[in-house]
């Protein structure tokens, strides 16, 4: 059958099974007006999801409980509320080990509560999808948008995609399952958004009909045996100690870790196809002023680009859609004419600026500036980006805010 099997029949919810390409690129779409949380529900509804486990934490509680409604409606097979994010992520790991397509959600302190599970998911080759609705991390406490938590996840061995808006989140959730479940990938995928900005505001999104769905997960395409006593070998332990004997090479553990990172690299061609590129460009292709941004910061940068154009200043936004794998080549290509690269971010540490600097070292002559940087729920008005850009270009600000 290979990877391009014929798509026919219906899934367990009675929806017609269509190819991922059809669902993402060809199916007729209808405009609806809804929040990001509701978009999550619509995506999961069309994704032939087998299992989900929920736990409340703002701002992802709504998306989580909406998945529960899908369970009542017959679109999700297994669903319950777990006892804490640590418990939930372990329960979700169990679901995936037993052969289910599984999705869950969390935010801020919840992500950190669950942290031990993420490298475990990756090393166990579990293609779990986590929708991360980024919010402030304690202390002090804030439920407002702030994506500092993404920096903690960068080296856990999972794929990370950052959606700019609800439309992108909808499509990324569907594409996420398809890419994560490829046999030569098969690692967890985190689809992240900037909290309330996306989860709770309404926007127009285009969605395909609800009577079609992704092909269901085939657990026997997994690169490790599924825990169900149905596949050889019969003697199999998911993730044993690989360090206990002098005759076992410690290199096994090293090799295993490198295999997980290799899996993320192997996702590139698939991610490129289903996301239509790991980056997206907006604005003047010849611009010497380039904003490299991800998530909501990209939206704000696009607004600033329009304002700069009114002043006769050419600018461009290169939106980074995939953080892991990081699009080194695409970024270098998209910024080859850049003199100034501004990296606006919604966190205090500037993790995206760090990634850009690491990727560009020795390969680009552009000046990289990590500004503006806001956090803890602050907005990033395009006027601020515009003002910073003019300062960098050495131009006079033409009006007062």
């Amino acid at each position, binding site marked *: 059958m*290979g*990877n*391009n099997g014929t798509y026919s029949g219906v899934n367990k919810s009675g929806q017609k099974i269509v190819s991922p390409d059809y669902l993402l690129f060809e199916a007729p779409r209808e405009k609806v007006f809804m929040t990001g949380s509701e978009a999550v529900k619509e995506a999961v509804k069309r994704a032939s999801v087998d299992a989900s486990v929920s736990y409340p934490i703002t701002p992802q509680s709504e998306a989580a409980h909406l998945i529960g409604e899908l369970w009542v409606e017959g679109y999700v097979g297994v669903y319950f509320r777990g006892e804490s994010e640590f418990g939930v992520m372990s329960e979700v790991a169990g679901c995936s080990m037993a052969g289910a397509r599984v999705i869950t959600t969390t935010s801020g302190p919840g992500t950190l509560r669950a942290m031990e599970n993420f490298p475990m998911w990756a090393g166990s*080759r579990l293609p779990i999808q986590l929708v991360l609705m980024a919010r402030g991390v304690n202390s002090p406490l804030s439920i407002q948008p702030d994506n500092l938590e993404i920096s903690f996840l960068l080296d856990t061995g999972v794929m990370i995609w950052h959606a700019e808006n609800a439309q992108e989140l909808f499509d990324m959730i569907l594409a996420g399952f398809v890419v994560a479940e*490829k*046999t*030569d990938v*098969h690692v967890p995928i985190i689809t992240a958004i900037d909290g309330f900005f996306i989860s709770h505001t309404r926007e127009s999104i285009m969605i395909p009909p609800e009577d079609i769905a992704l092909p269901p997960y085939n657990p026997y*395409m*997994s*690169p*490790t*045996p599924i825990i169900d006593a*149905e*596949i*050889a*070998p*019969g*003697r*199999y*332990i998911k993730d*044993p*100690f*690989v360090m*206990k*004997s*002098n*005759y*076992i*090479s410690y*290199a*096994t553990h*090293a*090799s*295993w870790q*490198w*295999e997980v*990172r*290799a899996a993320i*690299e*192997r996702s*590139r*061609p698939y991610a490129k196809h289903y996301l239509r590129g790991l980056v997206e460009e907006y604005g003047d292709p010849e611009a010497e002023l380039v904003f490299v941004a991800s998530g909501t910061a990209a939206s704000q940068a696009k607004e600033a680009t329009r304002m700069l154009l009114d002043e006769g200043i050419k600018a461009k936004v290169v939106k980074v859609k995939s953080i892991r794998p990081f699009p080194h080549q695409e970024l270098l290509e998209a910024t080859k004419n850049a003199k100034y690269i501004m990296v606006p971010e919604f966190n205090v540490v500037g993790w995206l600026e760090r990634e850009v600097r690491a990727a560009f070292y020795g390969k680009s002559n552009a000046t990289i500036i990590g500004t503006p940087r806001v956090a803890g729920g602050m907005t990033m008005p395009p006027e601020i980006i515009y003002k910073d850009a003019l300062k960098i270009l050495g131009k006079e600000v033409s009006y007062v805010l």
Partner: protein
Amino acid sequence: MATLGPYHFSPYPTAIVDGVLTPPPGKGLLYNEIVDEEVAMREAAKEMLTRENPTIFVGPLIIYAWNEEAKEMAKLVREMAEVLNAKIIPMVDYRPKYPKINPEVEINPNHPNLTIWHNNIKVCIFIGVHCHFANIALKIIRAETDCLTIAMCAKMGHEDAMITVRDQHPEDVRKFIEIAKQVKKELGK
């Protein structure tokens, strides 16, 4: 590059680091080049017929009769071994065996180098092994031994092997056996 080892003290850098990915459908990998499947198969057959101690490492997906295809593949692996004059050494499971495996009769993904060194294997085929464990083993073999690895994968293939083909089902393995017979005749073996 997915070149012949021994490559380095540790399994890093892996083939991916040098930009080698799994081959696209219909193709194979010959070291770090994407080639037609037939080309990869010919090279694989040639190496198996010309290097020392050719061995087929057969994994649980073919050893055990867990579905119909496994039974067919077992017959074909036997045939392949006869055509290539190769030994068969099984990978019966993936567990880390303590204290030590018997490298004469088995291979294990946690310490594949023991079997390769003990039997002085210079060329081998991996078939019927779950992709994750094949990749673990192939990275260690490439780092620590000079064995030429060939991966016949039912899924997307293995970039850490020196030669790999993908989507291998019974009809593809039959094709390989035919190619091997041809190569054998050409080499006068």
